[in-house]
């Protein structure tokens, strides 16, 4: 179930456990009894129809929404209000891209847990920001206003902020939506690379064609867990049917 434990020195053993979680979102029961567990080094696709609770689940793991049933454990302890080790990357359209701030300014936000309310950024902070910009191929755009970025560049800015944050787990909400072909391929490569560096990547994903090329594990979600497991065994037509078919009742149990 868990990802490969390739590199015992990294975060490879760090485990994310979601156990029987239920969440209300805007007075709607958005998630019920969601259970899965994975660990650093894995790239997990979150798949389900609109309204299946994908965003809600990501927000609950990020600590933005409270789970009123079940537990969400990161490295054995419950996720609190926030954690430096878990980065949340919202859908791109949730952000005001006309906001007067540079690429570097956004990435520097990732250093906030370190620098706090007013302490000037230390050398360590600046180096972490530079490294993150470099890793996401943004060094040349660092001083550019975010209003002048393409969709792919915007997504990379979010990733760079998560890297500057030194997060182990990255939660991405629809990262591929609205990107052109080239940007999609580049982003897929970057997510693979991040998982290869023993980070945990969890992303909600729409395009069923590309799942096999990008992800190690897949969570099929329809308010509840329909199925969870490695892509090869879980991402099957039967399971997809159970996830998307309009007549698939809530009570129908599908096991991978």
């Amino acid at each position, binding site marked *: 179930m868990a990802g490969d434990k390739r590199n015992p020195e990294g975060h490879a053993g760090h485990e994310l456990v979601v156990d029987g979680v239920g969440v209300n979102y805007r007075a709607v029961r958005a998630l019920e009894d969601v259970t899965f567990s994975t660990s650093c080094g894995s790239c997990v696709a979150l798949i389900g129809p609109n309204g299946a609770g994908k965003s809600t689940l990501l*927000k609950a793991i*990020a600590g933005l929404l409270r789970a009123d049933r079940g537990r969400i454990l990161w490295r054995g302890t419950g996720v609190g209000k*926030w954690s430096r080790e878990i980065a*949340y990357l919202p859908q791109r359209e949730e*952000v005001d891209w006309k906001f007067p701030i540079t690429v570097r*300014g956004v990435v520097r*936000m990732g250093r906030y847990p370190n620098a706090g*309310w007013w302490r000037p950024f230390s050398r360590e902070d600046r180096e972490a920001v530079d490294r993150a910009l470099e890793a996401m191929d943004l060094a040349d755009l660092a001083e550019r206003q975010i209003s002048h970025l393409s969709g792919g560049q915007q997504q990379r800015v979010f990733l760079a*902020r998560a890297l500057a944050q030194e997060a182990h787990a990255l939660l991405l909400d629809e990262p591929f939506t609205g990107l052109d072909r080239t940007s999609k391929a580049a982003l897929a490569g970057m997510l693979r690379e991040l998982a290869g560096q023993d980070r945990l990547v969890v992303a909600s994903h729409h395009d069923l064609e590309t799942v096999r090329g990008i992800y190690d594990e897949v969570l099929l979600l329809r308010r509840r867990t329909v199925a969870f497991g490695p892509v090869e065994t879980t991402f099957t037509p039967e399971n997809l049917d159970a996830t998307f078919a309009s007549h698939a009742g809530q009570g129908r149990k599908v096991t991978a």
Partner: protein
Amino acid sequence: MMEWFMEPLRHEFNQRALIAALIIGLTNGYASAFVVLKKSALKVGSLSHALLPGIAVAILVVGLHDWSAFLGALFAALLIGLGSLAVSRGTRIDQDSALAILYTAAFSGGIILLRRLRVTQEMEAWLFGNIMGLRDTDLWTNFWISLGALGILTALHRPLLMTLFDAEVAATLGVPVRFLNYLLLAILIIVLISSLQAVGCMLALGLLVTPAATVYLLTDSTNSLFWGGSLLGGFCAASAVLIGWWLNLEQGPTIVLVLGAVFLAVFVLSPRYGLVRHWVAKRTD
């Protein structure tokens, strides 16, 4: 000519008005960047109207003292702000509608009450400002409010900007988003009150939106937005006091009029986001 130019500076009340305009303009200009980035001009406008009934009730209950009007205004703004929140949480009415209902009702009550209190002369001042009527103590009050507001806003610049840019991500990074939102609103209300004597509650909104909105059409840099807005606010307010004296115009409305004129000019001529530039770019496409 020189004589005419220097004349207003000879009167003590003019000097006071000039200093007050400068202080108020600088503070409001700085704070206006937050209003523009938060896109909350309408909300702040509603709260500025809510100040009047607070003043009326304060005068009714304890009479007109240095601090009674200030505290009354503060209390009313908080009451109506929180009241609208309570209505929107408890019913299907959205917060903007709730705010509009509460502040217009309270404002009407305030007008009726002020007329009965035989302070009709002051009413004009509360509505449109009377910067010439400032006393030394008012000047000091303004000074301390400005210093406090500017101090807190600059000290919390980083987490405040993160909250305004993306509150959810800010929260996942440990920024106390809810606390900062309330704090920002509280400071904006206090800044509004500090400009009450200069421009009155009908016009205070202009001073708390226009400066940064104008600079927003000129630059993409966050720092220029804040400090540029501050300088523009201070400069416009101070020069409007002089212009008002020379041309014999009411100072409060003149301040807001000058700001509006500068905005209009920038809106048309800004080399970056101006109308002319936009038009030329379209023609050459």
